[in-house]
């Protein structure tokens, strides 16, 4: 479904991503793990069109997309929930959701998308008029995920969804991701909560200073020495 090949992305003189190749198959949950500054966000931002690669290709459903503008990428059914949520703080919860469906032009499809996200987060309609910035961190993250789903993506990319939310809600967050994948969604997940991420992933890639150093099945990586030492502190 998604194929990244020989990708290099930089900021000025700095190459944040070097020679990265990986793929995501339809229906999979694939995790990208790695410590702070490894280049995970850079990679997701490049796939979503916000950054342009220096080298390499990104294909989605066989079609090259690395020169497509971000506002057209989402119309190809790739949606990203960015790191730090990035909600439209002074707009209402509902307006945030509707903006998520900005690329859809069929009223019926927007209604279906709303139904789907309300099933996932039943509290949304009661708080529809609340300004997004007044929600708690966990609630904001749920709105961010709901907003990302409003474009009815076939590939959902999540950048550190557990960042900045209360520890006891982190488990709930991973249950949500699991619920989304059970509906047939393909998910590319970036996480620093390595144990939880690997537990719900089919496959994972480990990123270190812009390169993929390890890849494998979720449970395999959980057993690997590198992951156990570097990320699980075992």
């Amino acid at each position, binding site marked *: 479904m998604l194929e990244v090949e020989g990708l290099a992305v930089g900021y000025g003189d700095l190459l944040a991503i070097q020679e990265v190749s990986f793929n995501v198959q339809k229906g999979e949950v694939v995790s990208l793990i790695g410590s702070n500054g490894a280049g995970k966000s850079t990679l997701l931002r490049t796939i*979503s*069109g*916000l950054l342009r690669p220096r080298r390499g290709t990104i294909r989605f459903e066989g079609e090259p997309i690395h020169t497509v*503008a*971000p*506002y*057209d990428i*989402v*119309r190809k059914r790739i*949606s*990203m929930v*960015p790191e730090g949520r*990035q*909600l*439209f*703080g*002074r*707009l209402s919860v509902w*307006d945030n959701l*509707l*903006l*998520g469906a*900005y*690329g859809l032009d069929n009223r019926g499809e927007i209604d279906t998308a709303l139904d789907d996200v309300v099933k996932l987060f039943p509290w949304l309609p009661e708080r529809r008029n609340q300004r997004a910035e007044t929600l708690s961190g966990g609630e904001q993250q749920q709105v961010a995920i709901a*907003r990302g789903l409003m*474009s009815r993506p076939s590939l959902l990319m999540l950048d550190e969804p557990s960042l900045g939310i209360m520890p006891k809600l982190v488990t709930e967050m991973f249950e949500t991701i699991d619920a989304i994948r059970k509906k047939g969604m393909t998910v590319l997940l970036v996480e620093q909560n390595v144990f939880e991420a690997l537990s719900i992933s089919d496959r994972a890639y480990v990123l270190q200073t812009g390169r993929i150093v390890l890849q494998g099945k979720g449970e395999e990586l959980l057993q690997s020495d590198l992951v156990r030492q570097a990320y699980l502190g075992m």
Partner: protein
Amino acid sequence: MADQLLQQVVNSLLIGSVYALVAIGLTLIWGVMNVLNFAHGDFLMIGMFISFWCYTLLKMDPLFSIPVCAAALFLLGAGIYRFIISKVMKGPGLAQLVVTFGVSIFLANLAVMLWTPDFRLIEKPLLSGTWSLGSVQLSIPKFVASVGSVVVSAAVLLFLKKTRTGKAILAVEMNRDAAQLMGINTEKINSLSFGLGSALVGIAGAFLSMYYYIYPQVGGLFGLISFCIVALGGFGSIEGAFIAGILIGLVQTLGGYFFDPAYKYALVFLVYLITVWIRPQGLMGS
């Protein structure tokens, strides 16, 4: 004494609301793309001249030139964005400043060349005369310009808060990257916002042409005042610009009344300086 004071307050509101409309156009452009349009005052001048020539050549009253000015300035603003400013958007902020400054000088000089530096006035507008409300004299054209400015400002706010496109503009203003991820074409929103902000100053130009002198340099003072209003209200805040516009109207008129009219603009800038010193983000800025 009390009567005179009341008269001054009324005068403040009459000019303050027009200032507010001019400043809302400027703050909208700033909010969406962080470009300070130094040519904003000159856009006002162009609007006033369009109204003047509609009156002189086509016998069209300024009241009926309002949509003409709005449409012409929309096209001018969107065009200047698309063909000039968008080209330097990726460069340093200074480049954008220099470009809009250049447009400002160009338009003012073009106006002198085409229309001479003379002061002109629309001699017999449809609306003229004054109403006497007790001791207060209310100039009819100023009153209509003021009410019109409030109505147009409210309409803009309603458009931004209630329509799909308006919300997309607000989304770009709040978070450009996130807006793109939603599928909002930010280039289109930039053009649209530049056009809309310019249309608002065009409408203000049509209103002002009903009672104000029209000359190529008229934009300079209005431009400067609208910068103060935008900074005072908080860069990008529409509500802030409206309140600050009224406030500046009060300072200017009451200052001229209590001190010397010669100092009225100095007072405006003084109030601006004090406010940004105490509260650099402006009244409604975050």
